[in-house]
């Protein structure tokens, strides 16, 4: 009885856990609360806007080329549809440490673009990591405390779809006919979160059961497939990992996360041609930084060093805070006997893991 109760409370606790740290597969998860200082030093919390229909959290930086456009688009939207219950919050992710010089640069850009919505400083990039941001700019729409929409980058088609979604929330007609947006089942999200906790504690048997249950409950929810494949791989069951990734792709052939993970899996298995092919496709989906660095890694294994380094650069321009990127490029450099460069990348990767700022 006590065991059942404990399990129940653990279940409740994990159900309430904020966000699963897998970019692009977060829809339906609890949005992590944050409290950040705005550019004038005032504290702003996400929850203070809980009465709004939606809160748009726009992660941006002064060094990303598309960020000014994203800021302008949201400012324009707000001007047209103010008082419609939509709040926009800009979260600056320029660097791990923000100097006074950085703040001046940010203030200047905000003034030049005439931005009126709150501009928050993400010191240490805690919020950036909690929201699993993979590209700058990136937009997360929070509605009723949950992540309702996520869009990395500012891709042509995806951006218009997102603004259509916001138009509907603002009580307007969308510009084009919208497909009803898929929302994963809550119990499938809960099982997946719970399973991730068990994987951390190395209780693989329970994790397997929960992930399989999550897939059964909501076969369209891609996160448990990805997590299950990773678990199989961790457990040395590569054939099962491949099978589950293929199953996920049979449900959603264009899912960029699954395509990327499958491509990386194939690269590690030495099936480079197949990997390059699938990762070529993932990269064309745009804006998903891991697709770029997995692609880069596969290209290097395929002997295409120049193309590989270019692809790493593309990933870097989207998100310079991803430790895996540096780790993989380090490996590529090391294999290519470029020891100094390899050391520098492994160092950067470890600095990001240990959150060393200086």
């Amino acid at each position, binding site marked *: 009885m006590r065991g059942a109760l404990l399990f129940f409370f653990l279940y409740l606790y994990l159900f309430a856990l904020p966000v699963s740290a897998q970019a692009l597969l977060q829809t339906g998860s609890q949005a992590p609360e944050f409290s950040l200082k705005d550019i004038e030093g005032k504290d702003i919390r996400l929850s203070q806007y809980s009465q709004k229909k939606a809160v748009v959290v726009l992660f941006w930086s002064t060094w990303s080329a598309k960020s000014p456009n994203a800021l302008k688009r949201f400012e324009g939207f707000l001007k047209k549809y103010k008082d419609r219950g939509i709040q926009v919050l800009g979260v600056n992710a320029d660097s791990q*440490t923000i100097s006074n010089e950085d703040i001046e640069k940010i203030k200047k850009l905000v003034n030049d673009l005439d931005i009126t919505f709150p501009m928050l400083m993400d*010191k*240490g990039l805690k919020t950036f990591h909690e929201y699993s941001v993979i590209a700058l700019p990136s937009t997360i729409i929070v509605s009723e405390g949950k992540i309702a929409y996520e869009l990395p980058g500012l891709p042509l088609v995806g951006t218009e779809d997102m603004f259509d979604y916001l138009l509907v929330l603002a009580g307007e007609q969308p510009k084009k006919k919208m497909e009803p947006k898929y929302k994963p089942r809550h119990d499938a999200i809960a099982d997946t979160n719970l399973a991730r906790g068990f994987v*951390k504690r*190395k209780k693989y048997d329970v994790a397997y059961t929960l992930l399989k249950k999550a897939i059964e409950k909501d076969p369209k929810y891609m996160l448990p497939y990805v997590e299950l494949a990773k678990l199989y791989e961790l457990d040395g069951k590569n054939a099962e990992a491949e099978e589950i990734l293929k199953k996920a792709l049979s449900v959603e052939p264009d899912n960029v996360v699954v395509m990327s993970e499958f491509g990386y899996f194939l690269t590690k298995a030495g099936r480079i041609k197949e990997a390059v092919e699938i990762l070529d496709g993932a990269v064309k989906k745009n804006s998903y930084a891991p697709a770029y660095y997995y692609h880069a890694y596969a290209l290097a294994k395929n002997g295409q060093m120049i193309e590989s380094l270019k692809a790493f650069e593309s990933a870097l321009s989207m998100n310079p805070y991803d*430790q895996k990127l540096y*780790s993989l490029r*380090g490996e590529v450099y*090391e294999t290519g006997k470029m*020891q*100094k460069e*390899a*050391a*520098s990348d*492994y*160092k950067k*990767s*470890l*600095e990001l*893991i*240990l959150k*060393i700022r*200086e």
Partner: protein
Amino acid sequence: MKKESKKQIKVTAKQKSTNILYLVVFLALTFTSTFTCFLPVVFAQQEKAVSLYKESVKLLEDGNIDKAIEAIKEAINADPNYPEAYDHLGYILLKKGQIDEAINAFNSALKINSRMRTSKTGIGLALMKKGDLKGAESVLKEALILNPYPSMTHYVLGLVYEKLNDYEKAIAHFKEGIKTHKVRVGKE
């Protein structure tokens, strides 16, 4: 007469032992009450030190280095046997570039707890900053033995080898740092 004096001697001996017993009980009670009377004071001081330590960590995160130093020094005043406070002071001083003072702080931490692995790593980092790369290497290797989850020590050792242009060893330590951190996360 002889019998009586023997009896008297017996009575005196009995009284003596009773008196000693009373004395022991009295001393024990006095000691315990004195000790327990001081206990809340000691705990309060320790609690104050911990709270100041946390405050200093937060101040450092916010970039208020001088205030962080003030807070941690107050913590040390409140509890002079708090090795983590000296260790933290060492790292702030390192950040400020006061390397010798940082080494002193790390040594103070090690005097209280000789197995304070982060302080050993701190000394290694300080020696590296002073340009004593060989000295740093040796202290850091020692720190590695003490540390079951040595990601940070591997990191600093990697930095040392990078400065020595020994990239092979630098790579090995950075990679080991990544690997050991993953193991640690898995254990938590």
